[in-house]
Structures are given as C-alpha cells and as structure tokens.
C-alpha cells in the first residue's frame, strides 16, 4: 500500500449529501472481476450522458458538461470534498477502488458511512471528518476558485490552508500507523510471519492431518 504522510492538492467538490456507493460506481460494474480500472466509471451515471457497460471503453462517450468531474479545472484534484453521509449504501469495496483508480488520495466530509469509511483505510485512502462549517467554507472557496488547495499532514493530524493551520482532525492510532508506513493489514500481519510459521510447525505436530495435502 502507498504510504500517506502529507498531501497537497486542489479539491474536487461533490456538492450533494448522501452520495451512495451506487452513484460512486453503478451496479453493472460490480460484475467486473477486477479491482483496478474502475476510474473511468467513477460517478458513471452523473458523468456521462449515455449508458455505460462493463468492459466498454469510455473514450467517445458523451460527457455531461454539468458534472464537475468533467470540468478541466478540477481534473488534477486528489482530494474529494463531500457532504454528509458520504459513501452510504452497499459494503462492496468497488466504490473505494474507483476513487483510488481515479487518483483520489483523501476525502473531506462532515460524515461518512461506516463501512465505506473503514474500506478507505483498507485501501490507503484517508477519509477525514471536518466540522460542517469548515466544509462549507471549503465548498464556497473551491467552487469559486478551482485552484483552492489544502495540505494534509497526517503525522500532526492537521489541515493547512494558505500556509496556516486550518483544522485538526481525528484518526484511529492503528490506522494512522498503517497509513504513515504504507502498511496494509496484510503488511502488518506479514510482520508476524515468523510467529505464523511457528504456529504452523506446532500445529503440524499436534494435528498432522491438517497438513496431509501440503
């Protein structure tokens, strides 16, 4: 997993409450057998004027000029700015995979849906909960000027704007540790590889039948 220490980027404001996982990545793409490649279909229904199918190239599809993802000025933003209950809906991880594939590294919102929130961490994205007033302020600034950017410093748990600290944020200790060091849970577990091997050696002794096919 890519480590997350600091990130400076402009914002991509998605100005609606209750953005659900079906909106983030519509149902038909859940049938995909891949975890990457969802980026072009991020917010598919809002982003394109024509219907999309899995495996279809998005080149040449008709873009919805009203939707902010199609506004060139916001193209390089790596931080999503969202409203309350962001990421509600199903438990599938495809929604997070879509953001990741698109190039999003962090999300700011007044609240997130539980499972989406935890899925973000499992995939190296940093979701940050901020006061509604601060979120409002950022929406106004970002919609007025696409260049509006912030810096996120995970170590000190602060957000910096125009060189000045703007807000502190909370993050679970263990999750912070994983992100800072680029450790996914698998990476963490593999640190105990020797213990796992020792467990296996002991088990092989006490219950050899569990290893008869190895």
């Amino acid at each position, binding site marked *: 997993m890519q480590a997350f220490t600091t990130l400076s980027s402009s914002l991509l404001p998605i100005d609606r409450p209750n953005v659900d996982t079906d909106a983030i990545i519509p149902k038909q793409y859940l049938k995909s057998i891949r*975890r990457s490649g969802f980026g072009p279909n991020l917010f598919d229904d809002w982003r394109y004027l024509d219907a999309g199918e899995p495996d279809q190239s998005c080149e040449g599809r008709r873009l919805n000029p009203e939707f902010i993802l199609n506004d060139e000025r916001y193209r390089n933003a790596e931080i999503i700015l969202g409203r309350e209950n962001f990421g509600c809906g199903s438990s599938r991880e495809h929604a997070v995979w879509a953001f990741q594939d698109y190039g999003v590294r962090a999300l700011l919102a007044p609240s997130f849906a539980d499972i989406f929130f935890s899925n973000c961490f499992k995939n190296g994205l940093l979701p940050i909960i901020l006061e509604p007033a601060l979120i409002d302020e950022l929406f106004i600034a970002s919609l007025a000027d696409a260049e509006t950017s912030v810096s996120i410093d995970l170590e000190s748990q602060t957000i910096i704007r125009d060189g000045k600290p703007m807000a502190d944020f909370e993050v679970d200790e263990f999750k912070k540790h994983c992100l800072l060091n680029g450790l996914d849970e698998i990476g963490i577990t593999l640190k105990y590889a020797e213990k*796992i091997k020792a467990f296996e050696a002991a088990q092989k002794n006490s219950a050899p039948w569990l290893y008869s096919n190895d």
Partner: protein
Amino acid sequence: MSGLSLYDKLWNAHVVHRQKDATCLIYIDRHLVHEVTSPQAFEGLRLAGREPWRTASVLAVPDHNVPTTKRDQEIEDPVSRKQLAALDENCSSFGVQKFEMNDIRQGIVHVIGPEQGASLPGMTIVCGDSHTSTHGALAALAFGIGTSEVEHVLATQCLLLKKTKSMRIDLEGELQVGVSAKDLVLAVIAEIGTAGGTGYTIEFAGSAIRNLSIEGRMTICNMAIEAGARAGIIGVDERTLDYVAGRPFSPKGDDWEQAKADWSKLVSDADAHFDKVIRIDINALKPQVSWGTSPEMVVAVDALVPDPEQESSDSKAEGMRNALIYMGLKAGQAVKDIVIDKVFIGSCTNSRIEDLRAAAIVVQGRQLAGTIKLGLIVPGSGLIKQQAEKEGLDKIFLDAGFEWREPGCSMCLGMNADQLEAGERCASTSNRNFEGRQGQGGRTHLLSPAMAAAAGIAGHLTDVRDYL
C-alpha cells in the same frame, strides 16, 4: 474459574498473536473459494506481488453462477462465463485445487466442504460468503469474510479479529413427525429476531440438536447468520465422528485415531461461561413458513398472516406493512390459502440427500399442481445428485412434473438463469426472503423441503403433515 466453551476452545487453539487491545491474529485452517468474491482478492495479490501463503489450505469451486442445465455447452451469460474463467485462471496460476463445473464433486461450496471432509472438526474455516456458518455443525469455527479479508487470508493464512460474545441456545424436546431442522431454525430466528445474534457466536445445544443428523445440524448453523450471528457451532458427538469418517480429505490411519481423540474434547465444559443462554421448548413445534421479507417474519403453517396493527413497536409495524405490500398479502389471511407459482428445493440450507429424501416421500405417487409454473430440484452437489439417482429419487420428482437439475446455488439468489419473475411467488427451501433475492419483484416463502414439496402438490402453502 469457569470452564471453557466450545467457542473458547476453538479460538484459543488458533491464536497466533494477541495485541494489547485484544485483537488477535487468528490462524485459518481451511479457505474455501468461489467465483464471485475471489477475483479481486487474487488480483490484489498479483498487484502487490504476493504469493498465497499456503495453497494446500485452499479449495475452490464454482457455484453461484453456474447454469443448472446444458452443462455440456458453453455458458450463455457472458458475465458468468467470465467469472468462471477468472476462477480457472486464478486457480491454475496460483496452484489452487479446484473442482471443475462438470466434476462430480462440484456443488455449493458449503455443501461440498463437509462432503469432501475438507471441513473438519476443530478447524477455523472461512469463505467469502456469509453462509460459511454452515460448517460450524462439525464443531468448526466457520464464518464469512469480505474480499479484502479473502486476500488477507490468501496472503497470510490469518485474520485480525476480536473475539465475539457467546450465546448458547438450548433446543429441548422432540421434533414431531413432519417437523424438521429447517422449522427449528426458522422458529429460533422468529424468536430472537434477525439481530438477536448480532455480536455473538451461537452454540446450538440441547436434546433436539443431539437427536438431529449432521445434515440437519448444518441447516441450523447455515441460518445462524440470518439470526445476526457470524458463526453458529455445535459440539462433537458420535454422529459428528461417524459423518467425518472416511471422507476424501479426512484423516486416515493413525491420524484418524489421534484426530478422533482430540475432537472428542470439542464440546463446551459443563461450567463454561456464556454471555447469554436461551432455552426453547420444541415439543409443540409445528411446520414453519415465512410470510414476509425478513427471515424473522415467520409463523406456523396453520396460523394467519400477522396484523401490523397488533404490533406494539412502530418501526416493526412499519416493516410489516411494507412486507405485506411487497408480498401481496393481507393481514389475517390464512397462510394455507397463499397460492404459489414456483417451488425451489435446493441451496446450501436444504439441498443435501436427506432433504431430497424428505421431499421425495411427500412427492411419491403424486403430481405437481397444474397451476405450478416450475418445480425446481437442485441437488447441492454432483455426488448428492448421483446418490439420489441411485435411490430413484430423480424419477419420483420427474414423474411428478418437477425438473431435476445440475448442482449450484441456482434460484437461491438467481445469479444464473433460474429466477423468479416480478410478482411470482415461490415456496423455497433457501435462507433469505429479502426483496428481489430470487429475482426482481419475486416473492419468497421460506420453508422445509417436505413443506415445499407439499406446497407444490397442493398449489398453495399447506401443512405437510396432511401428506405423510
């Protein structure tokens, strides 16, 4: 100091490492894999350049998407075809053992695990599927996991978990003729509710459990998840050992003797602590049927469809009203008057040989009602199908007008061509009656195989005891 519960024993035997906050690294003995929740996990391994930790612990089988007819031809649905091809590709490139679709050993993952002896007492067993709880009937700690966790287990053979609370449900008494394990578990869910087991591992115990076959116990543990519990378990007894003996993956020779001795300890100590104990008397239990869109919306077959206006909780009443609308039913109508369109006998809850036998007893010498559009019998595995054919059950079903299909999940969730049309009503031996579960707009009544068979003969829900 109190003694240890079965759950404590299974947990303790698999702790690789304990963190300060009580999160444990738990070793996984058996990883069952199917085509729907595994492709992204394998891809994750590839992207990270990781190898599976222990391929010998993994057994893969396609079940959710497979068609139940024309297996000798190419699969029509391109999406299903692709998912099956991906499973093939992943298993062969990572060296994972897999049963092909047309292998006689193929079937629903939760049916073939125990059948092959791949699921054994004392094991930790996971699969990217919530009904993994089924395998707990063999005194194994078995539960469903998500795609990230599938990848985690593939890569490390472990999971980071916190222990759940533990509950024991004592089912005491004797089952009446015509009443089965399915009726028992439906009654349990009706009693404790779909969230009653949330945060718990449930141990099923009591005289009714001891008198059940292993197949019946699997039916019970299968639906522990519908009661909100991630895992359901049952202690080892003679029946467990008899069931496991001689299966392809089961221990042999000296190993068998040692395993048997070890497994005999896989019961809760008499003074074990449980966070909650519930006792249900089952002597008077009648055949059960679900009337609504949640597995707790269950009544006895001779009851009336319940009235939301009699319900004291507002939110529950609202749920009941919505369920009545979706199901096209009226409060106060007799359950036995509910006319059905299709019958589905199958799924990891009720597709084992015993289930097919119970249905065949009802069907023998009778005909599906003329109004029934489809009576589907889908054995849980190729071996079950073969056994049933040896016993002539297929003929009984075919003579009565049922269809005899190839094994798979089929109309339990309708990922293949076997689905309900909008508005169609089905007597189904599966485990979930959620809106749209068996097909968009489809209406599901959960019941036992014998009850489903009787409903097919009558053309409406009916009391199987009148057919025995």
